[in-house]
């Protein structure tokens, strides 16, 4: 049983807690990453993404909850585990007097060896000059040093913490193709990111966290299901009972421009779309525009909840600490 789980689950985190003094960085966080998938890890700044990653790397010790990475305890089995894990931090700092090539080799060797041909190929694809010293690299180039070292290592799990911050669009493209190649090789990737187009293009599943807690998790299709479709329609007569229909939000209506009929705008929960359309067509649809849900809207809804109703309703006990942080 245990072996079956550990072979199909790369990361399993349940009820993780971590406090720094009086600040609760993680407050019962859950995260499940299947083996072989690219998993998006999202949340507003300060939500606890990097803290979670540091716990997964055994750099921080969790106060409560469980965390298993590749079937191992990240705190106790750190070294054995790290042989199979490559990590790219969001803000790469290099030693000033070591060249980029030296750092790539060093990280590879510290993980137990790296593929020399793959290393050279990656340096070329990322257009990285390996002879420059640490201090002279720009932010994007420092990021590329860490990415090349991670992709050239022979590991099962890549943990990438906002890895593309500072990369130009061309290098972004290189990064995406590298991630796709890694997935094709059967490797698992945990990708923390703020770039939604990147998440949409790369990730099989995503988890959204807020204030140290997981608020949403699933495949992109499942999440889309939870979003709302925007509808603008011109109707022959004012709609009856539309406002009372479950799943209808932000309904406005006004006289149509030509003076005949009514123009309504609303947002409908995607799983209630059918009933909403029925109600609309009962009033005689003359024109209809529907805008499909975007991930942006989903994320913005979750992100904004932090300052809106979500905090007032659910986070009264932690609101002060969170804002202090």
């Amino acid at each position, binding site marked *: 049983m245990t072996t079956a789980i550990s072979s199909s689950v790369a990361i399993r985190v349940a009820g993780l807690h971590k406090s720094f003094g009086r600040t609760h960085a993680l407050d019962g966080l859950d995260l499940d990453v299947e083996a072989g998938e690219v998993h998006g890890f999202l949340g507003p700044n300060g939500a606890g993404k990097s803290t979670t990653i540091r716990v997964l790397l055994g750099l921080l010790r969790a106060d409560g909850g469980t965390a298993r990475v590749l079937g191992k305890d990240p705190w106790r089995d750190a070294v054995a585990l*790290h042989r199979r894990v490559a990590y790219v931090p969001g803000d790469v700092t290099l030693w000033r007097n070591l060249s980029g090539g030296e750092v790539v080799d060093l990280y590879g060797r510290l993980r137990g060896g790296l593929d020399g041909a793959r290393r050279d190929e990656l340096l070329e694809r990322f257009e990285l000059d390996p*002879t*420059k010293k640490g201090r002279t690299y720009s932010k994007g180039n420092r990021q590329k040093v860490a990415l090349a070292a991670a992709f050239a290592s022979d590991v099962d799990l890549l943990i990438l913490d906002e890895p593309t911050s500072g990369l130009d669009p061309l290098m972004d493209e290189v990064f995406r193709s590298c991630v796709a190649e890694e997935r094709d090789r059967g490797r698992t990737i945990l990708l923390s990111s703020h770039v939604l187009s990147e998440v949409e293009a790369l990730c099989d599943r995503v988890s959204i966290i807020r204030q140290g807690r997981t608020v949403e998790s699933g495949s992109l299709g499942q999440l889309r299901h939870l979003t709302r479709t925007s509808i603008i329609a011109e109707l022959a007569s004012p709609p009856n009972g539309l406002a009372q229909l479950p799943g209808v939000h932000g309904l406005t209506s006004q006289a149509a421009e030509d003076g005949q009929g009514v123009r309504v705008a609303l947002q409908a929960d995607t799983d209630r779309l059918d009933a909403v359309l029925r109600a609309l067509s009962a009033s005689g649809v003359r024109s209809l525009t529907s805008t499909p849900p975007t991930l942006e809207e989903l994320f913005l809804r979750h992100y904004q909840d932090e300052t809106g109703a979500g905090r007032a309703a659910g986070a009264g006990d932690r609101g002060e600490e969170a804002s202090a942080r």
Partner: protein
Amino acid sequence: MTAVSAGAALAPARGPRHLAGTGVLLRLALRRDRVMIPAWVLALGLLVAAMGSSFQALYDTAAKRAELAASMNANASLRALYGPVFGDTIGGLVTWRMAGFGAVLAAVMSLLIVVRHTREEEETGRQELLSAGMVGRRAPLTAALLAALIADIALAVLIGGGLAASGQPAAGSFALGLAIGGTGLLFAALAAIAAQFTESARLAKGLTGAVLGLVFALRAAGDAATADASSPLTWISPIGWAENVRAYAGDRWWVLLLLAAGTALALAAGYVLTARRDIGMSFLPARPGPARAPRSLSGPFGLAWRLQRTTVLGWTLGFLCAGGIFGGIAKGAADLVGTNRQALEIFRRMGGQQALTDAFLATMTGMLGMVAAIYAAGSVLRLRSEETGDRAEPVLACAVGRLRWACGHLAVAYVGAAVILAFGGLALGLGYGVSAHDVTGRLGPVLGAALAQVPAVWVLTGLAVCVYGLVPKATTAVWAVVGGCLAIGWIGPALKFPQWAMDLSPYSHLPKLPGGEATAAPFLWLLGLAVLLAAAGLVGFRRRDIG
């Protein structure tokens, strides 16, 4: 918080264009150093000021003081350490003990302040953000120098006022205060030059520190060679100037002009250099490195050695020079007494030529041992700067255990301390052996004496590991402890500290070598303590959060 309010206030900058924003940057510097500067100034100022009453209590008659002065001046090794006694008044004794030592500490304080607010700001990239505001080209350097000036003036006033308040002549008190504060200011200006040449703050501090070590060694050699600080070696050293102000013993105010002139020259050079370079850059730009890592750079040990090897080489070179200089004068140092009958009497009482030479060599090896602790503590605390600089995290995310990572740097710290002491002892022994025409007979005991310092150094190294592992936020306290041990060795004997206070320093437990009796017990105790401290630190480090 401070940075934000400072940035917002940059707009209404006044004054000359190049100095725009100096006031805001100065306030920022003082805000950031609100603990560091007062701690340095109070500790050093009160130490000097308090010595007046201590000497008063210990040497309450003029006869006792004259006896102390004569015996101190008769001993070349003590002259090398503290300089000669110019006046046997209370103030004269305070000056003898503290002019050089205080000047060195004021110099360290000042160079730390200046590098911290110039090169370190550029290295971390913070200066870029500040300079994008209304900040003139010369403003950051000026603000840093003003912060050092404020600290040095406060120090001079505290020393002068404190000693005057305790009943010493006001003129001598302020002469001593100005000599110490003035040396600090000179090294602030020298640090300003070093900060233009290096890209790393660590190297800028190291270079200025090396100059400080050099001028101290020159002063020590000069004072060992002459009884009245008139040697040219003493006169080319700013520490020698501070001493030659002769506070309470003639108050040669004009010597302060040397400090002022030196400071002015260094300041001019610093400003010329800073105007000619780009922000963040230096006059020694980074050269390209190898495209591939050499075989040696493959584990935590290789990495630690690569990161620290320049430091180790620098210290080795410094110890070689210091050992060579002191070794060369060791034999002559014991010859030079005998100018008067009283000195000859003391000379005989001290055991004659060989005993005095041994005492000199023992004092010098003791000094090397104490200085080696500064290297070792700095080397251990490299762990902390790797951690706070976010460079430890990616390494520890590789298949590198915490202990192995830490032990890489600790190996450099422990072995490095022994190596630099060995080279110091080697040079000391060779210098002495060559001048005494007996290298084979003299080298061994001196080298052994230098290596006998190692256990005491390792105790302080272990303490640094202990603090790093258990309370990483308090690593600054390591420097306070190292400074405390140096101070115990420096002023403890003269002030007749109680034995328990002397025993706090590991160096107090070492036998006086060469010449003294050595037993295994103190070495074993010290080694045991060193191991215990390091083990406690490593256990703590394994259990705590990184970052």
